[in-house]
């Protein structure tokens, strides 16, 4: 793709949250299912758009675009906010195809 047809290439996806969240949680969370507290949409974290260039890494709902998580690691330490998550489910096995 060329820059000319990038409507919004400034975001990544929840795969990029795997490393940062490994600072806080032992299991991998990229395959975890997340239910949005705002709209009830359920998707794996990896399928959420992630905006890495805000002051925090901001994870948004792929359904309603509301903020589901924010993560910052800086001189003050690691801060993680997830009030936008109603339920997070880690499957017993996450290596199976969807």
């Amino acid at each position: 793709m060329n820059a000319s047809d990038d409507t919004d290439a400034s975001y990544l996806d929840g795969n990029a949250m795997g490393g940062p969240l490994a600072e806080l949680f032992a299991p991998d969370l990229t395959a975890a299912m997340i239910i949005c507290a705002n709209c009830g949409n359920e998707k794996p974290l990896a399928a959420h758009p992630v905006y890495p260039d805000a002051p925090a890494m901001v994870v948004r709902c792929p359904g309603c675009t509301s903020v589901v998580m924010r993560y910052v690691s800086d001189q003050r330490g690691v801060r993680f906010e997830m009030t936008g998550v109603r339920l997070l489910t880690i499957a017993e096995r996450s290596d199976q195809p969807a």
Partner: protein
Amino acid sequence: MRPPDWPGHVAGQHVDVRLTAPDGYTAQRSYSIASPPEQPEVDLIVERLDDGEVSPYLTDELRTGDQIELRGPIGGFFIWPEHSDTPVQLIAGGSGVVPFVAMLSHHQETDSPVPVRLLYSVRTDADVIARDELRPRNGVDVVLTFTRDVPAGWDGPRGRIDRDKLVGHTVSPDQRPAIMICGSTPFVEAVTRELVALGHPVDRIKTERYGGMGDGS
């Protein structure tokens, strides 16, 4: 690389590389692991971005024996579907092919019976990554499409991945393939949209977007 205490990885995982300047400024990027789990050394393939903060150091400055700060292996979502009972369709744009290099090597090392196809969009012949690992073989179909300069004598597909190329060179929806797409954000969005339009259920499609702006595929 030979990371100490490496726990082993699965094909498709990535690592985070962190560089710290003398003044304390840090920059961090994610890179997919290119080597299969069966290989003791961990290989990364890094595309140099002229305006990048990390890749020019890794490609120009880093020397054998140097140490870098790594976090990983990371990821339990965008990984090879080890026990798939349907064909696997991989679709790559540019350096998005790197996790698939690990998957195809793993597929070969384990004599996997799972049929796999790769459709790989790349700018020019000189941009093709890991040519040896991407050779078609029994059970593995690899199709390249060149988006900028087409090599002399090439009679295969050319131009970006569009609906016609997906119909002609990927596993059809009736076979319910497990689909994995990796590339720049616009690439992933465009290919996903076309696959869904062709009738692939969205829950059969796994995607990984990378932030390397300026990739031509």
